[in-house]
């Protein structure tokens, strides 16, 4: 058992290392379009993992996660267009902004649970959408904010500019790795276990003395911050942010990523992001019916692989690793 575990650990280590090397080599050999595809996947992987903190770990089915994705993008758009695109300045502003947004929405939303929570979060994000469309002076109205400058970093006069898609790929990659690592630490920490406890049985957590409301509030805020980060990167990437980032379809899409990938595993939703962002790019070039195909893929997962991609992988892994298991 222990040697098997150690084997697995070692195996996992090498796999991760090879994966990382591949991700570094990739942009050197791939076309700029393929680079942009993967960049986008990193951004959405962060987004999907952030929702997983709620959906998979805390048992909070938010259908308004786009609120923070859009918020991150719009705050960046506003700051970068009117002041500076220096990430040393824009990043803290966006993170604080999304945290505040999440605190405010969470404060109200967490009074409800279940379907009411789902609808409340939906309502909140739809209101953000409405504001984005109406508050033209700040948000650019239905056209959104375009012409967002490329990101830079630096202090004073020494400023480095990430001027190409190639360079931005690495920005996204690094953010993805950091976010993945942070969230991974989070879900394995005592706090993360507490969230799992809340998902499993909130009443019992209260009986143990946990002020579950505060934990949920913190989870909601952290998820909002990571979602804000992904929206922030997405706006830098597209150099544009549109009201659709707030729309419920965005929330729906990220929910699909989490479910198809496998909620409660972080890696799963990241893989979900790969599938959901890449599949349409290919399918839609061959058929106009790609919405239906996405729906079908989704249904097949629900019916035959309820644990998502990650569940499938585990199953395959179990079968090939230990054929003697009863």
């Amino acid at each position, binding site marked *: 058992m222990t040697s098997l575990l150690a084997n697995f650990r070692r195996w996992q280590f090498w796999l991760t290392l090879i994966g990382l090397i591949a991700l570094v080599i990739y942009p050197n050999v791939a076309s700029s379009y393929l680079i942009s595809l993967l960049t986008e996947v990193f951004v959405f992987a962060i987004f999907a993992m952030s929702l997983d903190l709620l959906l998979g770990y805390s048992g909070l089915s938010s259908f308004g996660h786009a609120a923070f994705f859009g918020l991150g993008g719009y705050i960046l758009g506003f700051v970068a267009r009117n002041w500076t695109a220096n990430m040393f300045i824009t990043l803290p502003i966006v993170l604080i902004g999304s945290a505040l947004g999440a605190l405010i929405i969470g404060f109200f939303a967490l009074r409800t649970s279940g379907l009411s929570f789902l609808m409340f979060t939906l309502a909140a994000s739809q209101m953000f959408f409405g504001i984005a469309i109406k508050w033209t002076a700040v948000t650019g109205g239905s056209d959104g904010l375009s012409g967002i400058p490329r990101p830079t970093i630096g202090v004073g006069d020494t400023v480095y500019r990430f001027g190409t898609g190639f360079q931005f790929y690495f920005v996204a990659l690094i953010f993805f790795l950091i976010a993945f690592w942070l969230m991974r*630490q989070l879900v394995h920490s*005592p706090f993360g276990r*507490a969230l799992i406890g809340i998902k*499993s049985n909130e009443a*019992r957590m209260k*009986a143990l003395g946990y*002020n579950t409301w505060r934990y949920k509030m913190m989870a909601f805020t952290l998820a909002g911050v990571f979602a804000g980060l992904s929206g922030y990167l997405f706006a830098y990437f597209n150099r544009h942010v549109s009201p659709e980032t707030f729309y419920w379809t965005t929330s729906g899409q990220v929910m699909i990523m989490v479910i198809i990938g496998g909620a409660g595993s972080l890696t799963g939703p990241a893989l979900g992001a790969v599938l959901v962002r890449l599949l349409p790019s290919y399918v839609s070039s061959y058929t106009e019916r790609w919405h239906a195909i996405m729906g079908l893929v989704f249904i097949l997962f629900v019916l035959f692989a309820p644990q998502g991609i990650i569940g499938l992988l585990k199953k395959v892994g179990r079968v090939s690793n230990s054929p003697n298991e009863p």
Partner: protein
Amino acid sequence: MTQLKADHLHKDFGGLTALVDVTLEVKSGERRAIIGPNGAGKTTFFKLLAGEHIPTSGRVYFDGQDITHLPVHARANLGLSHTFQRNNLFFDLTVFENVRLAVQHHRRLAWQMFKSAGSYQAINEETEKILSQLGLSDHRQQLARHLAYGQQRSLEVALALATEPRALLLDEPTAGMSPAETAEMAKFIESLPRSLTMLIVEHDMDVVFSLADRITALHYGQVIAEGSPEEVRSNPMVQEIYLGTQSAVKRHL
């Protein structure tokens, strides 16, 4: 010294009155049992103390502090812990994780967000200790839902104990257990430190009479008798309710 006090508690549900003017004082270190037939208001009373219901009128005090409106978790943090009548566990987590959740909170480490939960040695050791106390060590990696019923019952108590309470409210700890398991559980409860105040709602009269220092009998939401086991046993009203004779009281109800 009085540790837990119910002061003129009254509870209505809609038009139904569940509890009428119940006053009760439990001394520090005392083991108190609450008995009464079904529908006597035992569970309602228990929930008022545990914080799952708010009384219509009256107050609840713990160590002299008014906790009538304190939420469940705040009571637990004051050292007033409780178990549930129906097993209320983290069924989809392992036995170890179940207990660890209780321990890590008690150790004030639950807000740690960075280090892996498994890397806190103090938590691990204490969790193991509690598991072995309740004979669950061998099942630590099992999901709680896969435990036998009696073991789940033990885990239920383990969770409450893991918070190191000063007072423990036990809601029918032996409900649904086999006679052998019941005896074991009674022995275990007996073996808990005498400093721990206990309030037990229990149907099994053997358990009640062997454990309790004092007994309170409820009927139709009112206290009808209170005193030492002998006093309650010989109380005519209790005898009448339990169908007259002492042997009937001893019969499992």
